[in-house]
């Protein structure tokens, strides 16, 4: 679905960003990118989404609509404050044709009854739900998630992770999830890519065999977490 070949994007004379990243995603796969801060994982998403065109290397997709292959969800909801929830979800589309789908998505993310609320009246979790619905409305073939739940409290985070799982079950969207939350990556992803260093490189890859939905306190996942922590080894720079 997505092939990333020797892609580099460097800042500050090569001291930040990432260098020679290779990555492949098959259709329907959920891949997590874990890494310490400053290893360029958010930059990687900006490059893939087209927000940052100054990179080297090649990014290819076999999406039907190349232009609209990627959907992106940011760390913050980034809703338009002057639009109500339903208008935010249909933002960037021709509203009339998508109205039905938008209403269905509103139900999926559990915001029915809030169509006409403005973002200022939403809690952080509700705003992020609206953002999920907005990014899904375009039916992107590849969904890029940039630490989507890092600003939420633990319980809201778990609710939204389960929401993502149910959405994947239905839509089978290929997803690249950047996160610094190891538990989140283990709970949601089929495969985890670990990045480290400045500039960041792919350190290793872990495939999680266990089928979803998984148990959060699972012993197998706990073992993998131990392994990842060792890989990341925060003491060595």
């Amino acid at each position, binding site marked *: 679905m997505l092939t990333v070949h020797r892609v580099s994007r460097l800042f500050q004379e090569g001291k930040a960003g990432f260098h020679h990243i290779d990555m492949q995603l098959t259709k329907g796969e959920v891949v997590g990118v874990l890494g310490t801060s400053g290893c360029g994982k958010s930059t990687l998403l900006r490059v893939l989404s087209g927000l940052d065109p100054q990179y080297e290397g090649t990014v290819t997709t076999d999406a039907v609509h190349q232009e*609209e292959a*990627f959907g992106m969800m940011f760390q913050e909801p980034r809703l*338009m404050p002057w639009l*109500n929830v339903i208008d935010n979800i249909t933002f*960037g589309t021709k509203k009339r044709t998508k109205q039905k789908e938008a209403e269905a998505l509103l139900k999926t993310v559990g915001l029915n*009854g809030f169509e006409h609320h403005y973002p200022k009246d939403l809690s952080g979790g*509700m705003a992020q739900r609206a953002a999920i619905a907005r990014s899904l409305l375009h039916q992107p073939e590849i969904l890029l998630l940039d630490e989507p739940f890092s600003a939420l*409290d633990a319980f809201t985070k778990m609710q939204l992770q389960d929401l993502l799982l149910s959405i994947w079950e239905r839509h089978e969207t290929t997803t690249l999830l950047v996160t610094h939350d190891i538990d989140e990556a283990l709970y949601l992803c089929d495969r985890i890519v670990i990045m480290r260093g400045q500039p960041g490189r792919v350190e290793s890859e872990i495939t999680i065999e266990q089928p979803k939905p998984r148990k959060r306190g699972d012993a197998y996942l706990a073992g993998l977490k131990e392994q990842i922590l060792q890989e990341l080894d925060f003491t060595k720079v």
Partner: protein
Amino acid sequence: MSSQTEAAVSPSVKQSDKDKRVRLPFVRNKALLGSVIPVLLIVIWELASRLGWVAPHLLPAPTTVLGEVVSMAQSGELWGHVGITLYRVAAGFAFGAAAAVVLGAATGYSKIANYLLDPMLQALRAIPSLAWVPLFILWIGIGEASKITLVAVGVFFPVYLNLTSGIHGVDRKLIEVGRMYHFSTLQLIRRIILPAALPSFLVGIRSGLSLGWMFVVAAELLGASQGLGYLMVFGQNTSAPELVVASILLFAIFGKLTDELLKRLQQRALRWQDSMENAS
């Protein structure tokens, strides 16, 4: 905001919040509260005139002023003056604001236009606007056009400045959302930049209007044969302070009315804003 847990996702939670708000009946009536001090001052003023504390040929009593306004209204003389002044403000406001929208949008959005035009406009802004009067009169004569131009100059700068700073202040993160959807430049402007800059633009429109009123007085004081400003000069020359005070009063009323109109518009347009005003 971000650390709230969603215990229950249902709209009923919000509504019960609203009912719980404590309301004091007197404090709630904003119009009543706002008129307490002006009414008190007018009563004191009336008393001062009646009791002879101030000389009536310098400061006539409010009732005398009101009587003057009523008699002018009855004779029909008043409407001509009010009408022409309103026309000058409206026309000047329209021209000034329109020019400011075009130039402000250009310098706000395009870097080249900003480098090209902004220094010049800032330099022109440094000229006290009344300094233009002799030049305008020389160029376009003493008629309506020079007065309207002067009002337009007054309206232009606040609108221009607030619009450019509003556009410059638009959150880059929101623009990125538009870029994710492959918006064209025009779509970016129309769907993200303009709505996001609206609060600042409306502040500019309101201060532009109040400057417009200021400049119409200046224009009419300096050379007019009709209008509220002319009425003031006339009152001064004929030693009729009630005429001057009546004109001031009318300026206050119309200035306040037009500003109120814009304020209502602003509140309606900015209901979405997460501000003190909307918190209530």
